[in-house]
């Protein structure tokens, strides 16, 4: 066995039991199916129901939450679950002993339970919120159908026991997100946003699918259990395959999780309804990339991680950490200049995904996932709060807001909680998870990245303060009179506020809840348990650095925007030369993407057009002309004279024969009887003679 694995098992404080989880794990498959049942029911019956089918979506999510909660507590209370249910549905014998096996099923382990629970919990609250938010909107039935599909595809993805089902869920998520981003398709911009998201994701998906094929065929199995066992065993012969597969799949993960430079679709994806953004950013879709990295953790960490690429400049792990670090800081800066409230949150999400990616890539399995876990709550809370604000002022732009804290007290308070959690203020959830990431980076020796992350924390606090100041403080600049949202929308806000506050305590180093263990232990229930660093006690020094950066950010933000948040001047103070235009232009990433597409695709398209016009069309036209000539000949010579002549002849012959034969039909019964008798006699005589 791999010494690393042995070391991990010996050194790990979380002992791992591989145990079947009883009935709950067997019923877990229901979670993967129920959203699709809801989808069909919504399409079938939704139109005539009070909430246009939203009831089914909520019911399915409620059922999922019940199952996920049961699993969650079973897993948390000592009985660590690890169960896989697989049904083989097809098999292609491509290679000797390496059949391409298509399997469906579901997986129950610490990682998937966590994801199930997050998707179900956040999904349920967002769905309930959407009942109010989407009330009276266009195509509500369609919306809920797509929404159910979205959640269902995500559950298929996180429950997948193999790469193929994961790809199915992955593409399903892409499809549903396309439908939802383009929900208001009357506006061309929204359609373009949907297209952009879809195409960007497709670029990444090519990497994922190729990587899956490399990895699956290389190792000989698509099941995560086998892939991870093979990765842990660390066969040297497989390393090349593993490196190629891991890098290609990391491209897929970059697309889904909006890592630099494939992040360009995510801010535009704000075109969809706000609940979509909330779900997309908190629980589904963007977390898929991080989930994939975690699911194939052994591949990335022990098989491919240390391989040097690009001529030895950098290792695979280094590349991933670097991309994560760039994402977390650069995208955070972009949030500083965005005027659209949802876009602020969107860049914030990308930045936080950068944190997660960096952590997982650097070896902080628990740290990255813990941040995913806490982030889901407060980001959902923030998006729903933003939705509430947008619902009230009918605008996305912060220039139309201001002074809403009095009009919308619930939204304001929950938004503040979410923002503090995101900024990483002790003792809210974000503080503990971010601290864990910082600790991991410190432990793994990425000092530079550690300081980038600290800077990111500062930027996070800064832009959240700006957003709050512009939205809730100052004077109202929009039209009409904003009012607080209905209970069906504020309810989920408060519910989400609770885990935003307390979720962090689940994984405070050294803190145990008796038999309830902690987050690290739950996650440890895995197919191939490979430990990561988890300190015995909080490193208060690192915590102080992170907290200090956050506090500094809030203070600076308040200093800049707090006093006169409603003046244009306040924002102008930020117009630092070079940096500000760069940020406003979003680092010209869209332009670069367009340029790439334009430079490569333009000439190629023109060339193809030429080929099409002169060569293909010529061939086709030629074939057409020949065919027409042939057709004329066939029509005139063969059909009209030959075939028609034949059939006309047959018809005339039939007619003549009928005219002749009708004389036989005299209507005289006795002549018929005579014929009948003669016929019978001939038969009898024939039998008698030739017997």
């Amino acid at each position, binding site marked *: 066995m791999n010494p690393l694995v042995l070391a991990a098992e010996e050194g790990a404080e979380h002992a791992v039991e591989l145990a079947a989880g009883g009935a709950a794990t067997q019923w877990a498959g229901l979670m993967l199916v129920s959203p699709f049942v809801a989808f069909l029911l919504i399409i079938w019956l939704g139109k005539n129901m009070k909430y246009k089918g939203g009831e089914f979506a909520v019911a399915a999510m409620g059922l999922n939450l019940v199952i996920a909660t049961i699993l969650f507590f079973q897993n948390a209370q000592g009985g660590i679950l690890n169960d896989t249910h697989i049904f083989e549905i097809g098999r292609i014998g491509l290679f000797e002993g390496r059949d391409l096996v298509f399997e469906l099923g579901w997986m129950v382990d610490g990682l998937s339970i966590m994801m199930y629970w997050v998707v179900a919990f956040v999904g349920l609250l967002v769905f309930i919120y959407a009942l109010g938010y989407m009330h009276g909107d266009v195509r509500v039935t369609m919306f809920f159908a797509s929404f159910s599909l979205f959640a269902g595809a995500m559950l298929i993805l996180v429950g997948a026991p193999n790469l193929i089902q994961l790809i199915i869920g992955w593409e399903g998520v892409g499809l549903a997100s396309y439908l939802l981003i383009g929900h208001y398709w009357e506006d061309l911009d929204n359609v373009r946003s949907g297209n952009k998201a879809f195409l960007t994701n497709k670029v990444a998906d090519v990497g994922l699918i190729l990587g899956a094929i490399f990895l699956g065929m290389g190792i000989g199995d698509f099941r995560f259990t086998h892939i991870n066992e093979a990765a842990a065993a660390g066969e040297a012969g497989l390393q090349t395959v593993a490196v190629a597969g891991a890098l290609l799949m990391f491209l897929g993960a970059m697309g889904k999780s909006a890592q630099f430079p494939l992040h360009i679709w995510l801010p535009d994806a704000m075109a969809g309804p706000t609940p979509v953004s909330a779900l997309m950013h908190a629980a589904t879709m963007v977390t898929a990339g991080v989930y994939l990295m975690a699911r194939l953790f052994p591949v990335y960490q022990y098989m491919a991680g240390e391989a040097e690429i690009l001529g030895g400049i950098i290792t695979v792990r280094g590349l991933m950490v670097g991309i994560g670090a760039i994402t977390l800081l650069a995208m955070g800066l972009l949030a500083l200049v965005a005027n659209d409230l949802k876009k602020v949150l969107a860049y914030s999400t990308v930045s936080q995904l950068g944190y997660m990616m960096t952590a997982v890539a650097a070896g902080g399995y628990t740290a990255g996932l813990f941040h995913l876990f806490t982030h889901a709550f407060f980001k959902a809370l923030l998006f729903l709060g933003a939705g509430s604000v947008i619902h009230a002022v009918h605008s996305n732009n912060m220039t139309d807001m201001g002074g809403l804290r009095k009009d919308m007290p619930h939204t304001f308070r929950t938004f503040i909680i979410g923002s503090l959690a995101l900024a990483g203020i002790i003792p809210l959830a974000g503080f503990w998870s971010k601290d864990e990431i910082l600790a991991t980076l410190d432990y793994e020796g990425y000092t530079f990245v550690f300081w980038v992350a600290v800077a990111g924390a500062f930027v996070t606090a800064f832009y959240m303060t700006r957003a709050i100041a512009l939205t809730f403080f100052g004077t109202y600049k929009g039209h009409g009179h904003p009012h607080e949202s209905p209970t069906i929308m504020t309810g989920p806000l408060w519910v989400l506020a609770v885990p935003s506050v307390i979720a962090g305590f689940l994984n405070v180093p050294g803190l145990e809840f008796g038999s309830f263990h902690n987050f690290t232990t739950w996650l440890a229930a895995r197919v191939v348990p490979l430990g990561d660093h988890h300190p015995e006690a909080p490193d208060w020094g690192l915590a102080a650095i992170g907290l200090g950066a956050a506090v500094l950010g809030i203070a600076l933000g308040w200093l800049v925007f707090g006093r006169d948040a409603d003046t244009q001047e306040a924002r102008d103070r930020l117009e630092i030369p070079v940096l500000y235009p760069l940020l406003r232009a979003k680092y010209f990433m869209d332009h670069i993407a367009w340029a790439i597409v334009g430079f490569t695709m333009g000439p190629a398209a023109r060339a193809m057009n030429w080929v099409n016009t002169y060569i293909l069309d010529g061939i086709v036209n030629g074939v057409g002309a020949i065919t027409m000539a042939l057709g004329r000949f066939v029509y005139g010579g063969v059909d009209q004279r030959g075939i028609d002549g034949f059939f006309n002849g047959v018809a005339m012959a039939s007619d003549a024969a009928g005219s002749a034969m009708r004389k036989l039909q005299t209507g005289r019964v*006795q002549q018929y009887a*005579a014929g009948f*008798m*003669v016929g019978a*006699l001939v038969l*009898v*005589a024939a039998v*008698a003679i030739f017997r």
Partner: protein
Amino acid sequence: MTFDVWLSDPVNWVYLAIGAAVLLCGVRVVTSQNVVHAALFLVGALAGSAALMLLLSAEFVAWTVVLVYIGAVIVLFLFGIMITRAPVVRDVGLDNKKARPVAAVVALATFAVLTYTSLLAFGNTEVARVGDPTPTETLAEGLLGRFVLPFEVVGFILLAALIGGITLARRDLSPAEEEERGAV
């Protein structure tokens, strides 16, 4: 079996007499130019057939033929003849004279084929157990045992024929006539 041996059995004399009568009556049935005569000759032919059946020890069937054919069917025929106004005198238009040669040829061919096949099939086979009538009990057990379903079906057919005959033959009364009929 030679002809004189065959002729030495007195039963065959009886057969010859009856058979001759039957054939004579049969010929007259199809050639008589008087419809009632034809019906009466049919009585003769049927009675002769019944007698032949008696010779073949089928007592019950023979008397059934008498009861059903002669007692009921022929009477029905006579009814039909009289209702359709058969003239008392010779009816020269009773036959389709043009059809006679064809009909004769077909009939002769039928006779030839049937006779040939009969001779082919049975040759000189003797009739078994002459003068030993089949007990009616045997027939009864056959009809009401093994063949009870066909028996019921035939009964049903008879019922349907009865109802159908009545429905077809009854004159449709005008409403005024109905009322008059009902008033009586």
